[in-house]
């Protein structure tokens, strides 16, 4: 499903340049006005349903430990305090898991984008023998969901000695048929004549790739990179498969141990709600920070993607 998300996401911003807001004087009947207000009311309620849970999390995270245990905190902290953040970051050592996540996310994203870009470049060469065979080999992987081969993947990682190393997590999903396909479409939008004339001038493939394709496909690459970044940060199943050693836990798994304590079984929790919610705030913060940048790149991505049409 991660791949599906990548497929659809770049369309986000087409909607903001909607052509349907055709200018012109439209008469507003009573019914139409009621309809408009109904729509706005509906959306406001919907937005509240989406945002209030997050505000509640923030309010609890910034409450004092004992105050956070009592019911009644809704939109505002009770006895404002950053104690929860200190406890979860230092005492519960979420900083180590955070660092692991940063390593896996950054190395994994760079590797993913690099390998997929190179593969996409090779696959747009028109006169390369065996090209369609390689394309089939790569695209067919999209039909095999990673979850369904988790048992043999576990064994492969064990046999390669990757269990309990961050490498197992970096290798997981390091290349995807989907990203290659998308990048290939972006590269196909670069005028072929440019590469052709460079080739006649004696430029190497690597040189052409670096000086023509990469700069002209920046928006596409950024789009892939940002989506990979988000899915890497949220990566969960591979971590619980390959990592047992808690010093190698990534943020999601460390957080999982913290926030999903069983309601039915643990009456004696030493972890107060403010600490747990502070953990959640820390986990979502990096994504909230890059979210606005993602939107900007989507717009460019659409413009570039539409060139080939």
């Amino acid at each position, binding site marked *: *499903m991660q791949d599906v*998300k990548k497929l*659809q*996401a770049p*369309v*986000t911003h*087409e*909607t*903001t340049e909607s052509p*349907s807001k*055709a200018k012109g004087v*439209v008469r507003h009947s009573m*019914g*139409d006005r009621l309809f408009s207000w109904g729509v*706005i009311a*509906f*959306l406001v309620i*919907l*937005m509240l349903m*989406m*945002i*209030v*849970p*997050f505000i509640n*999390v923030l309010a609890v995270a910034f409450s004092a430990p004992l105050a956070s245990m009592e019911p009644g905190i*809704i939109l505002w902290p009770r006895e404002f305090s950053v104690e929860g953040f200190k406890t979860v970051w230092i005492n519960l050592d979420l900083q180590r898991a955070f660092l692991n996540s940063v390593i896996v996310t950054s190395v994994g994203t760079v590797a993913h984008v690099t390998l997929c870009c*190179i*593969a996409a470049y090779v696959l747009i060469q028109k*006169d*390369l*023998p*065996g090209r369609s065979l*390689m394309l089939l*080999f790569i695209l067919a*992987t999209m*039909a*095999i*969901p990673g*979850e369904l081969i*988790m*048992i*043999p*993947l576990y*064994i*492969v990682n064990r046999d390669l000695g990757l269990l309990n190393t961050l490498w197992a997590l970096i290798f997981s999903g390091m*290349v995807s048929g989907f990203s290659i396909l998308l990048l290939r479409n972006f590269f196909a939008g670069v005028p072929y004549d440019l590469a052709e004339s460079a080739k006649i001038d004696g430029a190497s493939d*690597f040189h052409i790739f670096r000086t023509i394709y990469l700069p002209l496909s920046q928006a596409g690459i950024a789009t892939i990179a940002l989506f990979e970044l988000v899915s890497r940060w*949220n990566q*969960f*199943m591979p971590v619980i498969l390959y990592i047992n050693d808690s010093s190698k836990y990534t943020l*999601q798994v460390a957080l*999982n141990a913290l*926030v*999903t304590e*069983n309601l039915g*079984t643990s009456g004696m929790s030493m972890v107060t*709600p403010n600490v747990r919610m502070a953990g*959640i705030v820390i*986990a*979502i913060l990096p994504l909230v920070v890059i979210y606005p940048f993602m939107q900007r790149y989507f717009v460019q991505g659409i413009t570039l993607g539409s060139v080939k049409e």
Partner: protein
Amino acid sequence: MTGRTLRQMRSHAWLYVMILPVIVYFSVFVYYPLVQGVLSSFQEFRLLGGGEWVGTQNYVDVWETSKFWQVVRNTLLIGGGTLIFGFLPPIIVALALNEVRLLVFKKLAQTTVYLPHLFSWVVIGGMWIYLLSPSGGLVNELLALLDVGPVRFLTNTNWARTMMIGLPIWKDMGYAAIIYLAAITSISPTLYEAARIDGASRFQQVYQITVPLLTGTMKVVFMLNILGLLRIFDQIFVMRNPVIQRGIDVIMTYVYDMGIQRYELGFASAISVLVLIATLGMTAIVWKITGFGRAD
């Protein structure tokens, strides 16, 4: 092989070197495990050493295990529920967003509705475990104002299943809505102009122009969702607890428990192969019914 092809291959030698890592990667981390998984499903493993061929014994074991049928039933209930009840909401959201004339508000609403999709199930699950808690959770606090509750959302099987259906709908609504919104904006404005000239109200325009033109997108979204149905994992893994586990465990959490926790590799592989076959079969059927393959 002709001399010309060989010459071409030699002149492109670097290109083959460049793509080699990707070919090796897919061989090691996709194709080899796939073959290995199918082979394992016909083997019995001991803790040390390799497997021993046991024919279709693992499949027979799976068939005769009542827990397997229990998780199949849970998967169909939870996945099917999400598929059916989650179908309409994003369409309604997209239609509503499209009717907003104030661009700032539209953008804000779109961003807000999409927000939960950005976060992992650990974040969303952890948050809702807290919000749904019977002692002091926001939801029960609000219900208490109406003199209802407290409701034990995550320790009662029926409520837990309802939540497992409702939460993914809440989380992913904005994402599907964006797909629909993109489809709506590609509808030609002249259609609406013509309708306005004929005196159609805004509601009539939505109902008689937009909705019929969205059927293609509906098919695509439905197909994408149906393919994910059997693969639900994260949300259940994060939110389950011993009290409700029997009622919400799904196929993939069962594969994880049996394969990774209890090391019944053959048994777990057999289930994976069955799910793979079922997924491919479902894909073929849905492609045929919706004509998705042709349309694309």
